[in-house]
């Protein structure tokens, strides 16, 4: 199920999607524009673009630090919308942020003004890590009104009724959390992925897997396990952070991001081939 045709299209191609994340405005507005564009060049199919919130309770240290950098550099919801408009990319953008920013935007409390503006600047949907399905009705309604999608995160601990409720509400894609814990690049991808995917086998939305994917091989593995897409955040933010720390030229950092994106996308493609071969047996 999908509201937004662009987002739907990204998953309808006959290959796994590569879904990178960066925090908008990290480490500053201009560099961040370059970095997001580099991801697109590297093969991103969808980009999760973080709008920084001051209390990011679902993020690990890497992304927290990125958020602090972006906030310090002046990122705000209005600047974020400008940022989206300024971006010269051809892939659907999903806004990843916390509910309070959606709730406060505009003249009245509630998510509708934010969603309206998001639609206006061409965003295609939302991931809101602190908004469970139970509290999501107002945002769901606004998304439906403006043809945007609302992605939910399925955790390894999500079962039974909770899954059903999420299935009713989700659109665009479902974000499958590969392991417990907050975001952060790890060295292996948990076996839980397969189990988690099997629980939502029959949902009619694409399944993108994230949390801890760091290398092409990780991407390959989760795609082989059945994922329709690979979500990668911290591994990319690490490159931005290192560049910032070493005062590297923006162009160099952008190149590294493009290369990394390419590696991850290729990994996902490799995974798809392997899966095809395996099911071909």
């Amino acid at each position, binding site marked *: 199920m999908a509201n937004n045709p662009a987002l739907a299209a990204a998953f309808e191609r006959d290959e796994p999607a590569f879904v990178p994340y960066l925090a908008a405005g990290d480490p500053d507005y201009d560099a961040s524009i370059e970095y997001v564009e580099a991801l697109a060049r590297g093969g991103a199919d969808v980009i999760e673009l973080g709008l920084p*919130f*001051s*209390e*990011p*309770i*679902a*993020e*690990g*240290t890497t992304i*927290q*630090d990125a958020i*602090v950098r972006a*906030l310090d550099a002046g990122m*705000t*919801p*209005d600047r974020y919308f400008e940022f989206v408009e300024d971006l010269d990319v051809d892939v659907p953008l999903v806004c990843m942020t*916390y*509910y*309070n*920013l*959606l*709730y*406060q*935007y505009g003249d009245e*409390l509630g998510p509708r003004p934010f969603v309206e503006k998001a639609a206006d600047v061409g965003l295609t949907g939302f991931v809101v*890590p*602190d*908004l*469970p399905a*139970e*509290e999501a009705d107002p945002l769901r309604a606004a998304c439906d009104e403006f043809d945007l999608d609302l992605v*939910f*995160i*399925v*955790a*390894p*601990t*999500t*079962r039974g009724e*909770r899954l059903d409720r*999420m299935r009713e509400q989700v659109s665009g894609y479902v974000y499958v*959390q590969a392991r*417990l*814990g*907050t975001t952060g690049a790890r060295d292996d991808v948990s076996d839980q992925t397969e189990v988690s995917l099997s629980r939502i086998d029959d949902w009619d939305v694409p399944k993108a897997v994230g949390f801890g994917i760091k290398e092409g091989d990780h991407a390959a593995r989760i795609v082989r396990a059945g994922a329709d897409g690979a979500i990668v955040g911290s591994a990319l933010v690490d490159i931005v952070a290192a560049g910032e720390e070493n005062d590297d030229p923006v162009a160099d950092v952008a190149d590294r991001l493009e290369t990394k994106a390419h590696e991850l996308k290729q990994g996902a493609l490799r995974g798809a081939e392997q899966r095809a071969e395996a099911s071909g047996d």
Partner: protein
Amino acid sequence: MSETGKFGQYGGQYVPEALMPAIEELTDAYERYVLDNEDGFMDEFRERLRDFGGRPTPLQYADQLSERYDTDVYLKREDLLHGGAHKLNNALGQVLLAKYMGKDRIIAETGAGQHGTATAMAAAHLDMPCEIYMGRTDINRQRPNVFRMRLNGAEVNPVTVGRGTLKEAISETMRDWATTVETTHYVIGSIVGPDPFPRMVRDFHRVISDEMREQSLDRLGRLPDSVLACAGGGSNTMGAFAEFVDDDAVDLVAVEAGGSSLTVDEDEGVAPNSATLSTGVEGVLHGARTKLLQDSDGQIMESHSVSAGLDYAGVGPELAYLVDEGRVTPVNVGDDAALEGFHRLSQEEGIIPALETAHAFGYLHENPDAVGDVTLINVSGRGDKDLETVIEETEKRDLDVDVEMSVFESSGGAM
């Protein structure tokens, strides 16, 4: 989620999906053990509160204040609870609940260190491993409490992100919980966070007003005209109010930290106060919808108060609701008046209160006519933890109370 998890539009469960199963498990445990006393949970809790905690705490007539303000002032002495503050009611309840739930690890956040020390004490008492998250800045300015936690065998994990204070510590503890949720219980320190925390923490603190109400009826043959309590997150507040909420004639006054000013600096993202109930705007923070100190974008602001325990940008959703309903009156008292209240209670009654508590006495002083003939004030904690702060902050000011500071300055020399 059961509808009882909401207070009007406030409350709810705004948490990462990974935590939802833990929250559901906790809700179930709360309903069974706390509400239904399954396996005698509440009996054991009450017994331990009595023997380990020192309950009931007295309701004391304040001779000097009553005379000064020409009204009968009674003090609910939560400062006498083990650990020196009301905090233990909740910490003991939650650690015990974790034990009943079969968890084998406790985590908690702490700001000033009061909730951390209460949790560390409860965890030691119940033989549970315990880790406390505390901002690096707070660690440095609250050393005695860090020592106490460590002496009780708890690990203290410094949080270096951001300003390194309470709200960063809460976020960090939530992160730990998201990773360890199957074995670990997160002991939240006030009536904040996702449901069932606000209900549950209130119920563990409810014993305060339970006793107050009974003591008032026993001793005075009547209910008070008003109940005053300071409000940070609001746990001592709801503890002192809960049993009086249905007594319409009893005024419930929540005294917030007015800090140095009620005026906000949007550019810096700073509110030089913690007057969330009086000035906050509805929003979502740390798992609940409630009133918040935030800028117009919805970014959470740095709050401020001379008392670390009130220095929080949120407030319990139930209090936000009761304020909107007109049942609870939010008032606020600035740093200066709080310090004066601190000195007055110390000098006149021989009780050195926590700086948090002192705000309630600041209010009494400024509004002696507003509290009726009989007022009960919750002395939420003792001030041993605040000595250095008070001396430093008093020195900076020209207070309206006679404090001879020179003796402190020179106490190494010619005192």
